[in-house]
């Protein structure tokens, strides 16, 4: 809603500088947003860093999650998601890219540990059945594995969300790009 217009402003209409008033727009009409720069969908987005670098970062995040699980640091998916949330702004990545990336890193990180355990000959399937029974999950190994990966993914996505929200608060859109230009 527009603010009320004072009498003094009306009297100055037609005089120099009156164009600055700007408050005499039609009441109740929102100011139109400035036009966005044209960025056709088929053009490549502008990201900081190289694709290989980002891919390497994702692999590093996955390994960090896996290593953390092996060391008992169960909260590393959250931490990796949080860090991803921070750097996505700097890298110019959107959530539709970072979201699936964090999901994949979280699931792959914990899944990697389970897979390596199975490769070492540990009875992962039967153990999953035991856990399913104790947690009242549906019988079978797949359910327990799915719930395990879900716990990791939930952490990762929550971390991403928080990181992204914090960065957006501190550095609104464009500020980082402006900072980089300086």
């Amino acid at each position: 809603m527009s603010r009320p217009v004072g009498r003094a402003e009306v009297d100055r209409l037609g005089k120099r500088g009156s164009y600055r008033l700007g408050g005499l727009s039609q009441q109740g009409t929102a100011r139109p947003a400035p036009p966005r720069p044209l960025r056709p969908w088929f053009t490549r987005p502008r990201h900081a860093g190289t694709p290989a670098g980002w891919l390497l970062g994702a692999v590093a995040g996955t390994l960090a999650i896996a290593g953390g699980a092996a060391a008992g640091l169960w909260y590393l998916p959250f931490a990796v998601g949080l860090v991803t949330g921070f750097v996505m702004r700097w890298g110019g990545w959107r959530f539709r890219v970072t979201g699936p990336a964090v999901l994949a890193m979280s699931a792959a990180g914990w899944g990697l540990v389970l897979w390596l355990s199975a490769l070492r000959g540990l009875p992962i399937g039967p153990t999953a059945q035991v856990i399913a029974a104790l947690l009242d999950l549906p019988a079978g190994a797949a359910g327990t594995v799915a719930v395990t990966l879900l716990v990791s993914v939930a952490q990762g996505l929550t971390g991403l969300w928080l990181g992204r929200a914090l960065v957006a608060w501190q550095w609104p859109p464009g500020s980082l790009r402006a900072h980089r230009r300086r």
Partner: protein
Amino acid sequence: MLPDRRRWRLSRQVSNVAVALCAAVAVLGVCAAGLGTLPALGPLLDPGHGAWAAASGGQPPVSQTLTLPGLVAPVTVSFDDAGLPAIGAADRTDSALALGYLHARFRLTQLDLLRRRAEGRLSALVGPAGLASDTLELRLGLLRTARQEWARLPARSQTAELLTAYAHGVNDYLDQVRADRQWPALFSVAGVYPADWTPVDSLAVQGELTQQLDFTTTPLDYAVLARSLGMARTMSWFPVSFGTGAGQHPYDPGPYHASGVARIAKTMTAGNAGAVPSAAVARAAAAILAQTSALASGPAEGYSTGGAWVANGPKVAGGRSVLAEDAYLPHTWPSVWFEVAISAPGFDVTGATVPGIPGVLAGHNRHIAWSLTDTANQAALFYAERTSSTRPGRYLWRGRWRPMRRVRYTIAVRGAPARHLTVLLTVHGPVLSQAGPAVSVDWMGSLPSPDISVLAAIGAARDFGQFRAALRSWRAPAQDFLYADDRGNIAAISAGYYPLVRHGRPWLPMPGTGADDVAGVIPFAALPHSYDPPDHVIVTAGQRPVSASYPYYIGTTANQFGPGCRVSQEYSFLAARSRLRLSGLSVPQTSLADQFAARLVPRLVAALRPARLGPVQHEALALLRGWDHSMDPGSAAAAIWSTFWAAYVDATFAPWWQAAKVPVRWDPAVLTVSASQLTLDQVLAHWTLADRSNAAFSAPGEAARTAVPVLRAAFKTAVASLRARLGGSPAGWMLRRLHPSQSPVLADRAVSGLADRTVSGWQAADGYETPDDTASCVPVGRQEPGWRMIVRWTGAGAAGGVMAEGAYPGGQNENPASPWYANLIADWQNGLYLPMPAVGTVGLVRASGSSGVGGAAGSGSPWWELRP
């Protein structure tokens, strides 16, 4: 002032941060601390640790050298393909330490559950659902007894050293698990982890086993029944003794002579049964029964049909002796049994152990073999204390008002505030209820019993004299010990404390004023026993071990003495054979023949009138006529018989129960009319065969009738029931469809508090059946066969003079992911046995450490070398 757009954007960002922060806190909170009954999911499902780490416990052991603090000298452990370990130690206490380590390595959850149950600390693991069990156990006092016993043990006694070494072995493994954070899944789910093991824990587990086998609430059940059915009917249907004609084949007919302490009436009838307990006493009895029904270990005194037999002389090829055992304990996975061989200087024993107890309960050494099975005596006497509102906290005993001792406990409860409990103690024992008069229990299991030192002495015994001398100290639980040695001698001793009173009727709650107190126990020399009997055979199967002429009171029929037909069956089998060899000796143990049915089915067939039967009933009758009385799971006739018998028991007694309003809810396991009521089965069988006009067949308020119309009605009811449940074709009514047998996982019995989060649902899918479940001479039994063992002596002295085989339903490893979790079930189910790990096969590692591990290392089987 900020422009609208910026302000709107800022507020959106702030709210986005706030919501994201809330979501992060919620997700991390649930992951870190759980929510309600939901455990902390982060550490629990961490694939590197948490519950997934239990996978490492499911791996078979690999050959390796382990360092175990506390060892005096190196110890070797070798495993055969089935996972049965053999310990070789240069020191007796080292062998106990290695046994503790083995029990912890393969049965850590079981160990912790057993001690929690015994010590009233289950709630700390399972939450409020464990409170009922904890409260009763703390009142009953297994922990008090264990502490008392440990305090009395001289520090340098062999028993103290064994207990300490065993605890050291368990703790060595606990230290490893703590370091690796590879806990069994149950602890990770609960987020509660076992504390260090102590000698008191072992003694408490011993008490827990004693309670399962020895604690009885018979007098309370009598009180409730007498108040509802009346004393005459109660004592007629649950007599103290069946007398001589009941077919309970005692293993030793005597004669016995009273030799000391008190002697009470040897046969009891309704005439001298005593006064009906007061309503207040019955109310107190009901309150206690409600507590015992909630016991995590299930109802006591339910395992009376374990059996064992020994034979010698001409019965055995080679003229030596044979011992065969079939011990019954609650059936769980993992099994309560853990098979092991132990070799140490002067001690070479192989057999069955129970996790928590550093001793072999049943097995053999180089000279003797022994077994123990439960005897159904009455080891608990109940007293109604005289109290006064003018003297709170006091009771009258021997003319003086005495203060009740108070013991206070704090019960930790997972997920809830701790509870406080005050236990009152009188001279008789703990007060279990104050609903009505204060009722206390004098239970033989509350007395310190040197079971572990007795087992150690038995393991080292070389002949019957040493075996008998060791048993002199055995107090509880009262057990039938059978014995066979390499010289061809056989024996049986029903060892333990059998309490005696000078006055009163011990099968009812008695006044606590002093006159009816326990005056002593049956002297050891007068206990039921037999040595080298002339017919060369001794059989025990929970039957009354002596005849009705035995001069001492040992319990009533309601104590679940076995019906005797299984004993008769085994005596018949052994009487018809001579020169027995190891092969074929399992026949009596695995036989499905039901002598109970063999006696009664002809009466049923004779009572039925084919002309008045429908086509389905005709077909069912034809199946019964052609039946060989085998309770085979695939037999339709067996299903018809078992359903009929349950209906027959119900048709006879249920009208009386309903008319008298028997409050079965107070103790459903004992008070409910059912075919698993051994006493009712026996009286009904007796009436059907010899007293068909018994007044009990005439339902209260109805016309007089005999057994015949009840038989006919029960048959029709059974056929209708089976038709409704299994379809219209009797040929398809196989017993296995009627009684699919499943064994609960240990967690199921002990951790019901995990709100159905047990492994039973998953395990039940495997559908293992226990054929013996329905073949115990009781039509629909709830029997739970466990450790089976056959030992045949072929010569004296050397280990080559013995052949021994064993089997139990389960496996050595409690972890369901382990290949040794259920690997022994199939053999056990099929009546097959495995050679017991032989004593002395593991080469002892010399103190210098220069020697290897004997044959184990080269055989390809895994072995451990344990070093100090």
